[in-house]
Protein backbone atom coordinates (compact mmCIF):
# COMPACT_ATOMS: atom_id res chain seq x y z
CA UNK A 1 0.00 0.00 0.00
CA UNK A 2 2.89 2.32 0.55
CA UNK A 3 3.37 2.87 -3.12
CA UNK A 4 6.15 5.36 -3.71
CA UNK A 5 5.10 7.98 -6.20
CA UNK A 6 7.65 8.55 -8.92
CA UNK A 7 8.00 11.73 -10.91
CA UNK A 8 6.79 9.99 -14.08
CA UNK A 9 3.43 8.97 -12.64
CA UNK A 10 0.64 9.84 -15.03
CA UNK A 11 -2.28 8.75 -12.92
CA UNK A 12 -2.35 8.53 -9.14
CA UNK A 13 -5.15 7.23 -6.92
CA UNK A 14 -4.79 8.12 -3.25
CA UNK A 15 -6.82 6.43 -0.52
CA UNK A 16 -9.86 6.03 -2.76
CA UNK A 17 -12.98 5.11 -0.80
CA UNK A 18 -16.45 4.84 -2.26
CA UNK A 19 -19.81 4.19 -0.67
CA UNK A 20 -23.02 3.96 -2.69
CA UNK A 21 -26.32 4.97 -1.16
CA UNK A 22 -28.74 2.11 -1.64
CA UNK A 23 -32.19 1.39 -0.27
CA UNK A 24 -30.70 -1.14 2.15
CA UNK A 25 -28.14 1.35 3.45
CA UNK A 26 -24.69 2.41 2.32
CA UNK A 27 -22.80 -0.07 0.17
CA UNK A 28 -19.06 -0.04 0.68
CA UNK A 29 -17.61 -0.55 -2.80
CA UNK A 30 -13.98 0.55 -2.58
CA UNK A 31 -11.92 0.87 0.58
CA UNK A 32 -8.80 3.01 0.89
CA UNK A 33 -7.37 1.94 -2.45
CA UNK A 34 -4.17 3.58 -3.64
CA UNK A 35 -2.32 3.05 -6.87
CA UNK A 36 -0.09 4.91 -9.24
CA UNK A 37 0.41 4.37 -12.93
CA UNK A 38 3.58 5.37 -14.73
CA UNK A 39 3.36 7.43 -17.89
CA UNK A 40 3.02 5.00 -20.79
CA UNK A 41 2.56 2.05 -18.44
CA UNK A 42 0.17 -0.83 -18.91
CA UNK A 43 -1.53 -1.54 -15.59
CA UNK A 44 -4.20 -4.09 -14.79
CA UNK A 45 -6.51 -4.22 -11.80
CA UNK A 46 -7.76 -7.75 -11.14
CA UNK A 47 -10.27 -8.91 -8.61
CA UNK A 48 -13.37 -11.04 -8.29
CA UNK A 49 -16.66 -9.95 -9.84
CA UNK A 50 -18.42 -7.22 -7.90
CA UNK A 51 -15.30 -6.19 -5.98
CA UNK A 52 -15.49 -2.54 -7.01
CA UNK A 53 -13.09 -2.57 -9.96
CA UNK A 54 -15.53 -0.85 -12.28
CA UNK A 55 -16.41 1.66 -9.56
CA UNK A 56 -12.73 2.48 -9.18
CA UNK A 57 -12.33 2.94 -12.94
CA UNK A 58 -15.44 5.12 -13.23
CA UNK A 59 -14.05 7.28 -10.43
CA UNK A 60 -10.72 7.56 -12.30
CA UNK A 61 -12.69 8.67 -15.37
CA UNK A 62 -14.54 11.29 -13.34
CA UNK A 63 -17.89 9.60 -13.98
CA UNK A 64 -18.45 8.99 -10.28
CA UNK A 65 -17.29 11.02 -7.29
CA UNK A 66 -15.22 9.31 -4.64
CA UNK A 67 -16.54 9.37 -1.09
CA UNK A 68 -12.97 9.83 0.12
CA UNK A 69 -9.54 10.15 -1.45
CA UNK A 70 -8.44 11.64 -4.74
CA UNK A 71 -7.62 10.72 -8.31
CA UNK A 72 -4.95 12.79 -10.02
CA UNK A 73 -4.07 12.86 -13.70
CA UNK A 74 -0.89 14.79 -14.55
CA UNK A 75 -0.89 16.01 -10.98
CA UNK A 76 -4.35 17.58 -11.23
CA UNK A 77 -7.26 16.29 -9.19
CA UNK A 78 -10.00 14.74 -11.32
CA UNK A 79 -13.39 16.33 -10.65
CA UNK A 80 -15.25 15.36 -13.81
CA UNK A 81 -14.74 13.74 -17.21
CA UNK A 82 -11.17 14.43 -18.28
CA UNK A 83 -10.36 15.38 -21.91
CA UNK A 84 -7.18 13.29 -21.79
CA UNK A 85 -9.09 10.10 -20.91
CA UNK A 86 -10.56 7.67 -23.43
CA UNK A 87 -12.83 4.93 -22.11
CA UNK A 88 -13.53 1.46 -23.42
CA UNK A 89 -16.52 -0.23 -21.81
CA UNK A 90 -17.78 -3.73 -21.08
CA UNK A 91 -19.16 -4.99 -24.36
CA UNK A 92 -18.60 -2.43 -27.06
CA UNK A 93 -21.22 0.10 -25.94
CA UNK A 94 -21.78 1.35 -29.49
CA UNK A 95 -24.92 3.32 -30.24
CA UNK A 96 -27.03 0.90 -32.32
CA UNK A 97 -28.80 3.67 -34.25
CA UNK A 98 -25.54 5.04 -35.62
CA UNK A 99 -23.28 3.65 -38.33
CA UNK A 100 -19.73 2.83 -37.29
CA UNK A 101 -18.40 6.10 -38.69
CA UNK A 102 -21.10 8.05 -36.85
CA UNK A 103 -20.27 6.14 -33.67
CA UNK A 104 -16.61 7.05 -33.99
CA UNK A 105 -17.51 10.71 -34.62
CA UNK A 106 -19.64 10.92 -31.45
CA UNK A 107 -16.81 12.26 -29.22
CA UNK A 108 -16.13 15.03 -31.74
CA UNK A 109 -19.82 15.98 -31.90
CA UNK A 110 -19.94 16.21 -28.12
CA UNK A 111 -16.64 18.05 -27.79
CA UNK A 112 -17.59 20.25 -30.78
CA UNK A 113 -14.26 19.56 -32.43
CA UNK A 114 -13.37 18.95 -36.03
CA UNK A 115 -12.52 15.26 -36.44
CA UNK A 116 -9.21 14.21 -37.99
CA UNK A 117 -10.73 11.93 -40.62
CA UNK A 118 -7.38 10.70 -41.92
CA UNK A 119 -6.40 9.65 -38.41
CA UNK A 120 -9.71 7.79 -38.01
CA UNK A 121 -9.26 6.07 -41.38
CA UNK A 122 -5.79 4.97 -40.36
CA UNK A 123 -7.12 3.62 -37.04
CA UNK A 124 -9.94 1.72 -38.78
CA UNK A 125 -7.39 0.28 -41.15
CA UNK A 126 -5.15 -0.60 -38.19
CA UNK A 127 -7.86 -2.70 -36.54
CA UNK A 128 -8.81 -4.27 -39.87
CA UNK A 129 -12.14 -2.54 -40.36
CA UNK A 130 -11.52 -0.18 -43.27
CA UNK A 131 -14.53 -0.09 -45.55
CA UNK A 132 -16.95 -0.97 -42.74
CA UNK A 133 -17.79 2.66 -41.91
CA UNK A 134 -21.36 2.54 -43.19
CA UNK A 135 -22.29 -0.68 -41.38
CA UNK A 136 -24.44 -0.69 -38.29
CA UNK A 137 -23.16 -2.30 -35.05
CA UNK A 138 -25.68 -5.17 -35.27
CA UNK A 139 -24.05 -6.23 -38.54
CA UNK A 140 -20.74 -6.93 -36.77
CA UNK A 141 -19.52 -9.64 -34.42
CA UNK A 142 -18.72 -8.84 -30.79
CA UNK A 143 -14.98 -8.69 -31.49
CA UNK A 144 -15.44 -6.35 -34.44
CA UNK A 145 -17.70 -4.11 -32.34
CA UNK A 146 -15.05 -3.88 -29.65
CA UNK A 147 -12.47 -2.94 -32.31
CA UNK A 148 -14.73 -0.04 -33.27
CA UNK A 149 -14.93 0.96 -29.61
CA UNK A 150 -11.12 0.99 -29.49
CA UNK A 151 -11.00 3.22 -32.58
CA UNK A 152 -13.62 5.51 -31.00
CA UNK A 153 -11.54 5.82 -27.83
CA UNK A 154 -8.32 6.48 -29.75
CA UNK A 155 -9.92 8.82 -32.31
CA UNK A 156 -9.46 11.97 -30.24
CA UNK A 157 -5.97 10.92 -29.20
CA UNK A 158 -6.28 10.78 -25.39
CA UNK A 159 -3.12 10.09 -23.38
CA UNK A 160 -4.89 7.75 -20.92
CA UNK A 161 -7.03 4.74 -21.87
CA UNK A 162 -9.30 3.28 -19.21
CA UNK A 163 -10.59 -0.15 -20.19
CA UNK A 164 -13.41 -1.72 -18.19
CA UNK A 165 -13.43 -5.50 -18.73
CA UNK A 166 -13.59 -4.83 -22.46
CA UNK A 167 -13.31 -8.43 -23.58
CA UNK A 168 -15.32 -10.15 -20.85
CA UNK A 169 -18.17 -11.01 -23.21
CA UNK A 170 -15.99 -12.41 -25.99
CA UNK A 171 -15.16 -16.05 -26.63
CA UNK A 172 -11.66 -17.22 -25.68
CA UNK A 173 -10.25 -17.13 -29.22
CA UNK A 174 -11.50 -13.63 -29.96
CA UNK A 175 -10.27 -12.52 -26.56
CA UNK A 176 -6.73 -13.73 -27.33
CA UNK A 177 -6.88 -11.92 -30.65
CA UNK A 178 -8.04 -8.71 -29.01
CA UNK A 179 -5.36 -8.95 -26.31
CA UNK A 180 -2.68 -9.20 -29.00
CA UNK A 181 -4.21 -6.19 -30.78
CA UNK A 182 -4.32 -4.13 -27.60
CA UNK A 183 -0.67 -4.91 -26.83
CA UNK A 184 0.37 -3.97 -30.36
CA UNK A 185 -1.55 -0.71 -30.25
CA UNK A 186 -0.11 0.08 -26.84
CA UNK A 187 3.45 -0.58 -28.09
CA UNK A 188 2.76 1.71 -31.07
CA UNK A 189 1.06 4.57 -29.24
CA UNK A 190 2.52 4.44 -25.70
CA UNK A 191 -0.77 5.41 -24.12
CA UNK A 192 -1.08 5.03 -20.37
CA UNK A 193 -3.52 2.15 -19.98
CA UNK A 194 -5.48 1.01 -16.95
CA UNK A 195 -7.20 -2.27 -17.76
CA UNK A 196 -9.80 -3.83 -15.47
CA UNK A 197 -10.43 -7.56 -15.67
CA UNK A 198 -11.40 -10.55 -13.57
CA UNK A 199 -9.37 -12.75 -15.87
CA UNK A 200 -5.97 -13.18 -14.23
CA UNK A 201 -4.36 -14.78 -17.29
CA UNK A 202 -5.41 -11.82 -19.39
CA UNK A 203 -3.97 -9.45 -16.80
CA UNK A 204 -0.64 -11.33 -16.72
CA UNK A 205 -0.45 -11.37 -20.51
CA UNK A 206 -1.09 -7.64 -20.90
CA UNK A 207 0.38 -5.75 -17.99
CA UNK A 208 3.61 -4.34 -16.66
CA UNK A 209 2.05 -4.22 -13.26
CA UNK A 210 -0.99 -5.83 -11.65
CA UNK A 211 -2.91 -4.40 -8.72
CA UNK A 212 -4.84 -7.18 -7.01
CA UNK A 213 -8.13 -6.19 -5.41
CA UNK A 214 -9.98 -8.08 -2.69
CA UNK A 215 -13.67 -8.95 -2.69
CA UNK A 216 -16.01 -6.09 -1.74
CA UNK A 217 -15.20 -3.67 -0.27
CA UNK A 218 -12.33 -3.55 -2.77
CA UNK A 219 -8.95 -3.19 -1.08
CA UNK A 220 -5.48 -3.35 -2.49
CA UNK A 221 -4.12 -6.81 -1.68
CA UNK A 222 -0.82 -6.90 -3.49
CA UNK A 223 1.10 -5.47 -6.42
CA UNK A 224 2.79 -7.74 -8.97
CA UNK A 225 5.35 -6.48 -11.44
CA UNK A 226 5.27 -8.47 -14.67
CA UNK A 227 8.48 -8.37 -16.63
CA UNK A 228 8.01 -10.73 -19.58
CA UNK A 229 9.63 -9.40 -22.75
CA UNK A 230 7.54 -7.46 -25.24
CA UNK A 231 5.94 -8.07 -27.62
CA UNK A 232 4.47 -11.10 -25.92
CA UNK A 233 3.14 -14.07 -27.81
CA UNK A 234 0.29 -16.37 -26.89
CA UNK A 235 2.83 -19.16 -26.33
CA UNK A 236 3.80 -17.31 -23.18
CA UNK A 237 0.49 -18.35 -21.64
CA UNK A 238 1.55 -22.00 -21.77
CA UNK A 239 4.73 -21.46 -19.76
CA UNK A 240 5.17 -22.56 -16.17
CA UNK A 241 6.11 -19.04 -15.03
CA UNK A 242 2.74 -17.71 -16.15
CA UNK A 243 0.92 -20.69 -14.70
CA UNK A 244 2.60 -20.22 -11.30
CA UNK A 245 2.05 -16.47 -11.35
CA UNK A 246 -1.64 -16.87 -12.16
CA UNK A 247 -2.03 -19.31 -9.27
CA UNK A 248 -0.14 -17.03 -6.92
CA UNK A 249 -2.40 -14.09 -7.77
CA UNK A 250 -5.44 -16.28 -7.39
CA UNK A 251 -4.29 -17.38 -3.98
CA UNK A 252 -3.79 -13.75 -2.96
CA UNK A 253 -7.38 -12.96 -3.91
CA UNK A 254 -8.77 -16.02 -2.16
CA UNK A 255 -6.86 -15.42 1.07
CA UNK A 256 -7.46 -11.70 1.23
CA UNK A 257 -9.14 -10.85 4.54
CA UNK A 258 -12.67 -9.75 3.79
CA UNK A 259 -13.88 -7.90 6.84
CA UNK A 260 -17.16 -6.84 5.40
CA UNK A 261 -18.57 -3.42 6.09
CA UNK A 262 -21.73 -3.98 4.14
CA UNK A 263 -23.58 -7.02 2.92
CA UNK A 264 -22.69 -10.70 3.20
CA UNK A 265 -19.22 -11.62 2.04
CA UNK A 266 -18.57 -14.58 -0.21
CA UNK A 267 -16.62 -17.22 1.71
CA UNK A 268 -14.69 -18.39 -1.31
CA UNK A 269 -13.79 -16.23 -4.21
CA UNK A 270 -13.60 -17.93 -7.54
CA UNK A 271 -10.84 -16.94 -9.88
CA UNK A 272 -11.50 -17.29 -13.54
CA UNK A 273 -9.33 -20.14 -14.69
CA UNK A 274 -11.53 -21.16 -17.59
CA UNK A 275 -10.20 -18.50 -19.94
CA UNK A 276 -6.83 -17.84 -21.44
Amino acid at each position, binding site marked *: MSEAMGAGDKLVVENATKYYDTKSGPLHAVDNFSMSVAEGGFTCVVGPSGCGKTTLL*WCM*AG*LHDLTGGTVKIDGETVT*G*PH*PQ*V*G*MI*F*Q*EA*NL*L*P*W*RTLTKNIL*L*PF*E*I*KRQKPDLDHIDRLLDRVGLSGFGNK*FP*RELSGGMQQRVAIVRALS*FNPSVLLMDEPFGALDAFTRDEMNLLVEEIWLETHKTIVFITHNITEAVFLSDRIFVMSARPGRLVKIFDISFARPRSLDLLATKEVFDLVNEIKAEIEHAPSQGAGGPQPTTVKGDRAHG
Partner: protein
Amino acid sequence: MADKQLGDKIPEFGKRQAGGGQAGGLSDMSGFGGGTGARTFWEIVAIVMVAVCVIGGTEIAVRVMEVPQYVMPPPSAIFMALITDFEFIGPHLVHTLIELFSGYTIGAATGLLLAAIITQFPFAEKIVAPYVLMLVTTPMLALVPLLILRFGFGYEPRIIAVALASGPMVMINAATGFRRVDLAKIALARSFGATTFQIFTKIRVPMALPMIIVGLMIGAIFGLLTAVGAEMVGGGFGLGNRLTTFSATLQMPQFFAVVVVLSILGILIYVAFFLIGKKWASWQA
Protein backbone atom coordinates in the same frame (compact mmCIF):
# COMPACT_ATOMS: atom_id res chain seq x y z
CA MET B 1 -45.77 -24.80 -63.16
CA ALA B 2 -45.84 -21.82 -60.84
CA ASP B 3 -44.51 -23.85 -57.91
CA LYS B 4 -41.63 -25.15 -59.97
CA GLN B 5 -40.64 -21.67 -61.03
CA LEU B 6 -40.64 -20.40 -57.44
CA GLY B 7 -38.71 -23.46 -56.33
CA ASP B 8 -36.01 -22.68 -58.86
CA LYS B 9 -35.63 -19.10 -57.70
CA ILE B 10 -35.44 -19.40 -53.94
CA PRO B 11 -32.05 -21.16 -53.65
CA GLU B 12 -30.50 -18.58 -55.93
CA PHE B 13 -31.91 -15.85 -53.74
CA GLY B 14 -30.45 -17.54 -50.67
CA LYS B 15 -27.08 -18.08 -52.32
CA ARG B 16 -26.73 -14.41 -53.08
CA GLN B 17 -27.32 -13.53 -49.46
CA ALA B 18 -24.84 -16.04 -48.12
CA GLY B 19 -22.14 -15.23 -50.70
CA GLY B 20 -22.10 -11.49 -50.90
CA GLY B 21 -18.53 -11.62 -52.22
CA GLN B 22 -17.36 -9.48 -55.08
CA ALA B 23 -16.25 -12.30 -57.37
CA GLY B 24 -19.70 -13.65 -58.15
CA GLY B 25 -21.31 -10.24 -57.86
CA LEU B 26 -22.63 -9.89 -61.38
CA SER B 27 -24.27 -13.27 -61.83
CA ASP B 28 -25.61 -13.24 -58.28
CA MET B 29 -27.14 -9.81 -58.81
CA SER B 30 -29.03 -11.00 -61.86
CA GLY B 31 -30.22 -14.00 -59.89
CA PHE B 32 -31.41 -11.70 -57.16
CA GLY B 33 -33.23 -9.45 -59.63
CA GLY B 34 -34.98 -12.41 -61.23
CA GLY B 35 -35.92 -13.82 -57.84
CA THR B 36 -37.40 -10.58 -56.62
CA GLY B 37 -39.32 -10.12 -59.85
CA ALA B 38 -40.91 -13.53 -59.66
CA ARG B 39 -41.65 -13.23 -55.97
CA THR B 40 -43.28 -9.85 -56.31
CA PHE B 41 -45.16 -10.96 -59.42
CA TRP B 42 -46.68 -14.03 -57.78
CA GLU B 43 -47.33 -12.12 -54.61
CA ILE B 44 -49.24 -9.52 -56.60
CA VAL B 45 -51.16 -12.23 -58.43
CA ALA B 46 -52.15 -13.85 -55.13
CA ILE B 47 -53.11 -10.55 -53.52
CA VAL B 48 -55.20 -9.48 -56.54
CA MET B 49 -56.88 -12.87 -56.76
CA VAL B 50 -57.86 -12.89 -53.10
CA ALA B 51 -59.17 -9.32 -53.41
CA VAL B 52 -61.18 -10.25 -56.49
CA CYS B 53 -62.61 -13.28 -54.67
CA VAL B 54 -63.59 -11.27 -51.59
CA ILE B 55 -65.12 -8.31 -53.42
CA GLY B 56 -66.60 -10.35 -56.30
CA GLY B 57 -67.89 -12.96 -53.86
CA THR B 58 -69.61 -10.28 -51.80
CA GLU B 59 -71.11 -8.78 -54.96
CA ILE B 60 -72.47 -12.17 -56.08
CA ALA B 61 -73.67 -13.17 -52.60
CA VAL B 62 -75.48 -9.86 -52.04
CA ARG B 63 -77.20 -10.07 -55.42
CA VAL B 64 -78.06 -13.79 -55.33
CA MET B 65 -79.43 -13.66 -51.78
CA GLU B 66 -81.23 -10.40 -52.56
CA VAL B 67 -79.90 -8.69 -49.44
CA PRO B 68 -81.84 -5.43 -48.99
CA GLN B 69 -79.74 -2.37 -49.84
CA TYR B 70 -80.19 -0.83 -46.36
CA VAL B 71 -78.41 -3.84 -44.89
CA MET B 72 -75.55 -4.19 -47.37
CA PRO B 73 -75.34 -2.60 -50.80
CA PRO B 74 -73.32 -4.50 -53.42
CA PRO B 75 -69.64 -3.38 -53.67
CA SER B 76 -70.22 -2.08 -57.19
CA ALA B 77 -72.88 0.32 -55.88
CA ILE B 78 -70.51 1.50 -53.14
CA PHE B 79 -67.77 2.05 -55.69
CA MET B 80 -70.15 3.97 -57.98
CA ALA B 81 -71.33 6.10 -55.06
CA LEU B 82 -67.71 6.85 -54.16
CA ILE B 83 -67.14 8.20 -57.67
CA THR B 84 -70.43 9.88 -58.56
CA ASP B 85 -71.15 11.30 -55.10
CA PHE B 86 -67.61 12.23 -54.19
CA GLU B 87 -68.54 15.90 -54.48
CA PHE B 88 -70.78 15.32 -51.44
CA ILE B 89 -68.03 13.53 -49.53
CA GLY B 90 -64.84 15.40 -50.50
CA PRO B 91 -65.55 18.71 -48.69
CA HIS B 92 -66.41 16.80 -45.52
CA LEU B 93 -63.15 14.85 -45.84
CA VAL B 94 -61.37 18.23 -45.85
CA HIS B 95 -63.22 19.27 -42.66
CA THR B 96 -62.25 16.02 -40.93
CA LEU B 97 -58.63 16.37 -42.03
CA ILE B 98 -58.47 19.95 -40.71
CA GLU B 99 -59.78 18.82 -37.31
CA LEU B 100 -57.46 15.84 -37.26
CA PHE B 101 -54.32 17.77 -38.22
CA SER B 102 -54.95 20.72 -35.89
CA GLY B 103 -55.97 18.61 -32.90
CA TYR B 104 -53.25 16.04 -33.47
CA THR B 105 -50.51 18.65 -33.88
CA ILE B 106 -51.49 20.32 -30.62
CA GLY B 107 -51.96 17.03 -28.77
CA ALA B 108 -48.83 15.29 -30.06
CA ALA B 109 -46.59 18.31 -29.49
CA THR B 110 -47.89 18.78 -25.95
CA GLY B 111 -47.64 15.05 -25.24
CA LEU B 112 -44.04 14.84 -26.47
CA LEU B 113 -43.00 17.92 -24.52
CA LEU B 114 -44.64 16.72 -21.30
CA ALA B 115 -43.12 13.24 -21.69
CA ALA B 116 -39.65 14.72 -22.19
CA ILE B 117 -39.94 17.04 -19.19
CA ILE B 118 -41.69 14.71 -16.80
CA THR B 119 -39.37 11.76 -17.26
CA GLN B 120 -36.51 13.98 -16.12
CA PHE B 121 -38.21 14.46 -12.75
CA PRO B 122 -39.42 11.15 -11.27
CA PHE B 123 -41.28 12.98 -8.50
CA ALA B 124 -43.28 15.11 -10.95
CA GLU B 125 -44.03 11.94 -12.88
CA LYS B 126 -45.60 10.35 -9.80
CA ILE B 127 -47.87 13.36 -9.34
CA VAL B 128 -48.97 13.58 -12.97
CA ALA B 129 -49.29 9.84 -13.68
CA PRO B 130 -52.87 9.31 -12.38
CA TYR B 131 -54.22 12.18 -14.47
CA VAL B 132 -52.49 10.96 -17.59
CA LEU B 133 -53.86 7.48 -16.95
CA MET B 134 -57.34 8.98 -16.58
CA LEU B 135 -56.95 10.88 -19.86
CA VAL B 136 -55.77 7.73 -21.62
CA THR B 137 -58.55 5.49 -20.32
CA THR B 138 -61.50 7.90 -20.49
CA PRO B 139 -62.99 8.08 -23.99
CA MET B 140 -62.65 11.76 -24.86
CA LEU B 141 -65.86 11.50 -26.87
CA ALA B 142 -67.65 11.68 -23.54
CA LEU B 143 -66.57 15.32 -23.26
CA VAL B 144 -67.82 16.34 -26.68
CA PRO B 145 -71.41 17.27 -25.67
CA LEU B 146 -69.95 19.44 -22.91
CA LEU B 147 -67.44 21.02 -25.30
CA ILE B 148 -70.25 21.74 -27.75
CA LEU B 149 -72.18 23.53 -25.00
CA ARG B 150 -69.19 25.74 -24.37
CA PHE B 151 -67.78 26.20 -27.92
CA GLY B 152 -70.75 25.64 -30.20
CA PHE B 153 -70.92 23.47 -33.32
CA GLY B 154 -67.74 24.67 -35.03
CA TYR B 155 -64.25 23.17 -35.26
CA GLU B 156 -63.25 23.99 -31.69
CA PRO B 157 -64.89 21.16 -29.70
CA ARG B 158 -63.68 18.60 -32.24
CA ILE B 159 -60.10 19.91 -32.30
CA ILE B 160 -60.02 19.93 -28.51
CA ALA B 161 -61.39 16.37 -28.38
CA VAL B 162 -58.80 15.16 -30.91
CA ALA B 163 -55.99 16.85 -28.97
CA LEU B 164 -57.21 15.34 -25.70
CA ALA B 165 -57.46 11.88 -27.26
CA SER B 166 -54.14 11.83 -29.11
CA GLY B 167 -51.98 13.78 -26.64
CA PRO B 168 -52.02 11.31 -23.72
CA MET B 169 -51.44 8.38 -26.10
CA VAL B 170 -48.35 10.07 -27.47
CA MET B 171 -47.24 11.07 -24.00
CA ILE B 172 -47.57 7.69 -22.33
CA ASN B 173 -45.63 5.92 -25.09
CA ALA B 174 -42.98 8.61 -25.42
CA ALA B 175 -42.52 8.57 -21.64
CA THR B 176 -41.92 4.82 -21.78
CA GLY B 177 -39.26 5.54 -24.40
CA PHE B 178 -37.60 8.30 -22.39
CA ARG B 179 -37.56 6.13 -19.28
CA ARG B 180 -35.38 3.52 -21.00
CA VAL B 181 -32.08 4.53 -19.51
CA ASP B 182 -28.96 2.71 -20.49
CA LEU B 183 -26.43 3.74 -17.88
CA ALA B 184 -23.48 2.59 -20.01
CA LYS B 185 -24.50 4.77 -22.95
CA ILE B 186 -24.99 7.79 -20.73
CA ALA B 187 -21.61 7.10 -19.11
CA LEU B 188 -20.11 6.91 -22.59
CA ALA B 189 -21.43 10.34 -23.52
CA ARG B 190 -20.37 11.73 -20.13
CA SER B 191 -16.85 10.38 -20.60
CA PHE B 192 -16.57 12.67 -23.63
CA GLY B 193 -17.73 15.54 -21.43
CA ALA B 194 -21.35 15.65 -22.65
CA THR B 195 -23.72 18.11 -20.97
CA THR B 196 -27.17 17.05 -19.73
CA PHE B 197 -28.68 18.56 -22.88
CA GLN B 198 -26.25 16.69 -25.13
CA ILE B 199 -27.04 13.44 -23.33
CA PHE B 200 -30.71 14.16 -23.98
CA THR B 201 -30.31 14.87 -27.69
CA LYS B 202 -27.58 12.32 -28.51
CA ILE B 203 -28.63 9.41 -26.28
CA ARG B 204 -32.09 9.71 -24.73
CA VAL B 205 -34.02 10.93 -27.76
CA PRO B 206 -32.61 8.38 -30.23
CA MET B 207 -33.20 5.61 -27.67
CA ALA B 208 -36.78 6.76 -27.16
CA LEU B 209 -37.48 7.23 -30.87
CA PRO B 210 -38.98 3.80 -31.61
CA MET B 211 -41.48 4.22 -28.75
CA ILE B 212 -42.15 7.83 -29.77
CA ILE B 213 -43.04 6.70 -33.28
CA VAL B 214 -45.38 4.02 -31.91
CA GLY B 215 -47.01 6.66 -29.69
CA LEU B 216 -47.41 9.07 -32.61
CA MET B 217 -49.08 6.36 -34.66
CA ILE B 218 -51.50 5.28 -31.93
CA GLY B 219 -52.20 8.94 -31.19
CA ALA B 220 -53.03 9.65 -34.85
CA ILE B 221 -55.37 6.68 -35.09
CA PHE B 222 -57.11 7.63 -31.82
CA GLY B 223 -57.33 11.19 -33.16
CA LEU B 224 -59.10 10.02 -36.31
CA LEU B 225 -61.49 7.93 -34.23
CA THR B 226 -62.30 10.84 -31.96
CA ALA B 227 -62.67 13.34 -34.82
CA VAL B 228 -65.25 11.14 -36.56
CA GLY B 229 -67.02 10.36 -33.28
CA ALA B 230 -67.19 14.06 -32.36
CA GLU B 231 -68.63 14.83 -35.77
CA MET B 232 -71.34 12.26 -35.18
CA VAL B 233 -72.33 13.94 -31.91
CA GLY B 234 -73.14 17.34 -33.34
CA GLY B 235 -72.43 19.90 -36.03
CA GLY B 236 -73.43 19.83 -39.68
CA PHE B 237 -70.14 18.87 -41.34
CA GLY B 238 -67.35 16.30 -41.39
CA LEU B 239 -67.24 12.63 -42.39
CA GLY B 240 -68.83 11.54 -39.10
CA ASN B 241 -71.75 13.84 -39.78
CA ARG B 242 -72.08 12.30 -43.26
CA LEU B 243 -72.30 8.85 -41.68
CA THR B 244 -75.25 9.87 -39.49
CA THR B 245 -76.91 11.79 -42.33
CA PHE B 246 -76.56 9.04 -44.94
CA SER B 247 -77.77 6.35 -42.56
CA ALA B 248 -80.74 8.50 -41.47
CA THR B 249 -81.74 8.92 -45.10
CA LEU B 250 -80.97 5.28 -45.96
CA GLN B 251 -78.37 6.27 -48.57
CA MET B 252 -76.40 3.11 -47.89
CA PRO B 253 -74.02 3.13 -50.93
CA GLN B 254 -72.98 6.65 -49.92
CA PHE B 255 -72.73 5.58 -46.27
CA PHE B 256 -70.36 2.74 -47.17
CA ALA B 257 -68.43 5.05 -49.50
CA VAL B 258 -67.66 7.22 -46.44
CA VAL B 259 -66.61 4.09 -44.51
CA VAL B 260 -64.23 3.22 -47.36
CA VAL B 261 -62.76 6.75 -47.26
CA LEU B 262 -62.25 6.44 -43.50
CA SER B 263 -60.50 3.09 -43.75
CA ILE B 264 -58.23 4.44 -46.50
CA LEU B 265 -57.39 7.34 -44.19
CA GLY B 266 -56.58 4.95 -41.36
CA ILE B 267 -54.42 2.77 -43.61
CA LEU B 268 -52.55 5.83 -44.88
CA ILE B 269 -51.78 6.85 -41.30
CA TYR B 270 -50.51 3.37 -40.54
CA VAL B 271 -48.38 3.15 -43.70
CA ALA B 272 -46.90 6.61 -43.11
CA PHE B 273 -45.76 5.69 -39.60
CA PHE B 274 -44.62 2.27 -40.75
CA LEU B 275 -42.30 3.96 -43.26
CA ILE B 276 -41.12 6.49 -40.67
CA GLY B 277 -40.41 3.64 -38.27
CA LYS B 278 -38.52 1.73 -40.95
CA LYS B 279 -36.34 4.76 -41.57
CA TRP B 280 -35.72 5.88 -37.98
CA ALA B 281 -36.25 2.88 -35.73
CA SER B 282 -35.06 -0.09 -37.77
CA TRP B 283 -31.88 -0.34 -35.64
CA GLN B 284 -34.02 -1.87 -32.92
CA ALA B 285 -35.08 -4.91 -34.92
